[in-house]
């Protein structure tokens, strides 16, 4: 409220659209056929994302397969997910985290020069020295090109935490690379 020549003038802010008046996204309900097509179409992408995280084709295929099985079991959730790609990515990241944490074979002792191995040996050796969380962060930021906000949503941490963790992950990679 503001006094102006004896008259009271009310400064009114422009009315913003309230939550109630914003367009509400339509509730998605996918059929089983649509989910089948979705999972089949997502398979190559899931495999490549798994490969970017675990850096080994066989393990990546296992991780992608397990993520697909998990998604298939949770069809009801997938049927109503507003962003199925994000939903699948979250499932895959969790599977990859588990695979990296409980992996029996030490990546540094296995035969990295086998013909079916993938990518630069040096990069894979360097990645193997990083914590699973760092590998996932690097893959989400560099491979998936996700923003800090999106990564923060996945990891359920503030954006600032993502920035600092990503900085640490990059520093850890560079440090391991120099050795």
């Amino acid at each position, binding site marked *: 409220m503001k006094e102006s020549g004896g008259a009271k003038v009310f400064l009114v802010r422009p009315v913003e659209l309230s939550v109630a008046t914003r367009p509400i996204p339509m509730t998605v309900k996918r059929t089983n056929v649509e989910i089948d097509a979705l999972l089949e179409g997502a398979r190559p992408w899931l*495999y490549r*994302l798994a490969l970017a995280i675990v850096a080994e084709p*066989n393990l990546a*295929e296992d991780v992608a397969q397990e993520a697909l099985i998990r998604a298939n079991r949770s069809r009801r959730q997938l049927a109503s997910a507003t962003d199925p790609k994000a939903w699948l990515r979250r499932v895959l990241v969790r599977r990859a985290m588990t695979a990296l944490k409980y992996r029996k074979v030490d990546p540094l002792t296995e035969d990295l020069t086998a013909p079916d191995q*993938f990518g630069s040996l040096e990069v894979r050796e360097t990645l193997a020295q990083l914590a699973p969380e760092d590998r996932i962060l690097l893959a989400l930021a560099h491979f998936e090109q996700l923003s800090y906000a999106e990564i923060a949503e996945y990891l359920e941490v503030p954006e600032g935490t993502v920035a600092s963790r990503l900085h640490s992950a990059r520093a850890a*990679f560079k440090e391991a690379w120099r050795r």
Partner: protein
Amino acid sequence: MKPEAMTALDQFFDECHAAPPTPRREPGRGSALTVPAVGLTLGIAAALLVSLFPAAPAPEAARQTAQALADRQLRREEKPDGAVGSRQRIPTRWTV
């Protein structure tokens, strides 16, 4: 000389983008979810179930077991001064 670390990492991720969707697998080296793995899991589950729920004893064996238990209970009750087996009964409250 080694390339820059982040350049090498980005190159690696580029290779991941271009990776064929189905990698070549060595014969006999399958996923963790192959038929033998499923068979082994089912076998272990069946063995666990069998060990958890053993078959009912034969009627004669069951009768003998029940009789042995009853006899033992009777012998316990016959002990003087509340002695149970070779051990004395532990007092419920210690006095100082």
